[in-house]
């Protein structure tokens, strides 16, 4: 579904150089998200086979899946942005980066600034919800059947959201450096 990134290799290499430690962080989050997907896959199979073969389904699977999907998506978000696979229509930008690289990077820096602002706003407004859920021990499910507190998921949204906002900031800095900075020889690569 996602567009293949049509960024020039040069720009990607530069984006990785100054923040490789940060890159390790986004990768670690993505690894956790990928393992979580695998765990959900196994859980569903244990439930299905438990039900058919032994008449013993696992309780709470729908609740676990519904909360997990939020965690999985936010854990993957910064890495998805880092490898430039956020869904976008890159025909015009791609062409500009080739024909008028400086203007292309300026346009792209606007996109990344917008991303930084939007994700930052989201984190800012989720934060109080996390505090509430933590202090009030808010949970989903039915008591006596299956319950699960919601603060870990909200913590993931805040934490992984912050990392994603930072990734937007790094992309932004990269674009500005290429457009206006000293890396003139990188333009048009």
């Amino acid at each position, binding site marked *: 579904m*996602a567009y*293949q990134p049509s960024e020039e290799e040069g720009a990607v290499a530069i984006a990785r150089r100054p923040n490789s430690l940060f890159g390790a962080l986004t990768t670690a989050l993505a690894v956790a998200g990928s393992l979580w997907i695998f765990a959900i896959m196994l859980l569903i199979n244990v439930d299905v086979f438990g039900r058919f073969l032994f008449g013993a389904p696992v309780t709470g699977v729908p609740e676990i899946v519904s909360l997990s999907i*939020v965690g999985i998506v936010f854990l993957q978000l910064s890495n998805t942005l880092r490898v430039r*696979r956020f869904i976008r*229509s890159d025909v015009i930008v791609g062409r500009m980066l080739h024909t008028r690289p400086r203007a292309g990077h300026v346009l792209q820096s606007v*996109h990344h600034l917008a*991303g930084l602002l939007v994700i930052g706003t989201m984190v800012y407004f989720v934060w109080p919800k996390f505090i509430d859920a933590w202090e009030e021990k808010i949970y989903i499910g039915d008591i006596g059947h299956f319950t699960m507190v919601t603060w870990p998921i909200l913590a993931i949204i805040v934490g992984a959201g912050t990392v994603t906002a930072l990734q937007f900031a790094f992309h932004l800095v990269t674009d500005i450096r290429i457009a206006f900075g000293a890396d003139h020889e990188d333009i048009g690569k």
Partner: protein
Amino acid sequence: MSEIEIGIGAIVLMILLIQAGMHVAIVLMGLSFVAVWMIKDNINIAGSLIAKSAETAIASYNFGVIPLFVVMGLLVSVTGMGRDTFDVAGQAFRKVKGGLGMATVAANAIFAAINGTSIASASVFTKLAVPELMRLGYTPRFSVGVVAGSSVLGMLIPPSLLLIVFGIIAEVSIGALFTAGIVPGLLLAAAYVVTIRVLVRWFPKFVSEDGLMDGQYDVLFSSREMLVKMFPVALLIVIVLGGIYGGVFTPVEAGGVGALGALVIAIAKRRISLPMFWNVLVETGVVTAAISFLIISAHMYANMLALSRLPNVLGEWIDAANLSLTALLVLYLVLIVLLGTILDAVSIMLITLPLVMPVMIAANVDLVWFGIITIIAVEIGLLTPPLGLAVFVIKTNLEDTRIALNDIFIGAAPFAVTMLIVLALVTAIPQLALFLVYLG
């Protein structure tokens, strides 16, 4: 500014910013946030909407289908089941003129039943079928065109990521949508085969410059080999479609069992290593995050639209214009196909559905059928310039750089026309999509 004007302004800006290459989810979230803030004149209402969307928009059991069917589709791709299907179909059609073209369609239709995205089909079959077609004397244009055209089957024949996204946004049963996609999908595949027959008969130069080599194709595999090749594919189809259609599994469970099944088959065939499986999981994460985050942003956008009262006003206009349902549908489908030439499939559905769903519900349109015709219309856009996504994927995967983007668009044109005809058919005869759904 009135709330209606704010709503309209947001939509216009949205389309412009998406065209300018801004990330679609950021556009939807950012503009919805600002629009709600303006409508309510209170930033905290906009803030609680963005927080609520992040926390709850995708917190639903049904969203489990996205990563699970993506895992399954990717496993099926790396396992070489695409190649097996293509081999078997190639042998089945070997005696017919244009047979390998038809085999490409048939293999895609079967592959589509174990794999949820057009993109996966397009990339697998570009590498597989295009060199083989050209070797047998097909023109480059036809070779890439038939792959582009038939890759679209992946989105119509269940499991399908686009049907899942439609079901989530429109709140329609994903199982029912999957069932409804089967007959139109097979109909489209059959129509493609007829199209190839017509092209071979009346436009032979489009298909081949100096005569096809089809019909001299030797038998390459024994029946036993064919069975061995098809057994895993058939097994997965039975698990997924049989499970959902027979009411044994929810779509989420079918995705989970199907994914595990694909993994077991891959291990049994010794076609997967630990690093390959790890890549599958990582790629799944990327695809899942990209689509799900788009759905979160669409949730905000839908709420913003409701606050702007734009869907209500649109409904009143349509009432006042006294349009017949047919005229309304034709208008809608034309709009979708046109949007498909500039936006990608998921974005189109996210932007238009919250606007038109209330109108369609008021007109008592069957939403399952509505989903199927929406998907076909969106898919036509995948084949048309300037932004035919399927065509771009083929270009990326093409090893032969002499084939230009334009050649792919021209080659795909007959198939896009065929899709239009099938779209008209399914629109005129809803039973094509619905009779299986209401059978049980």
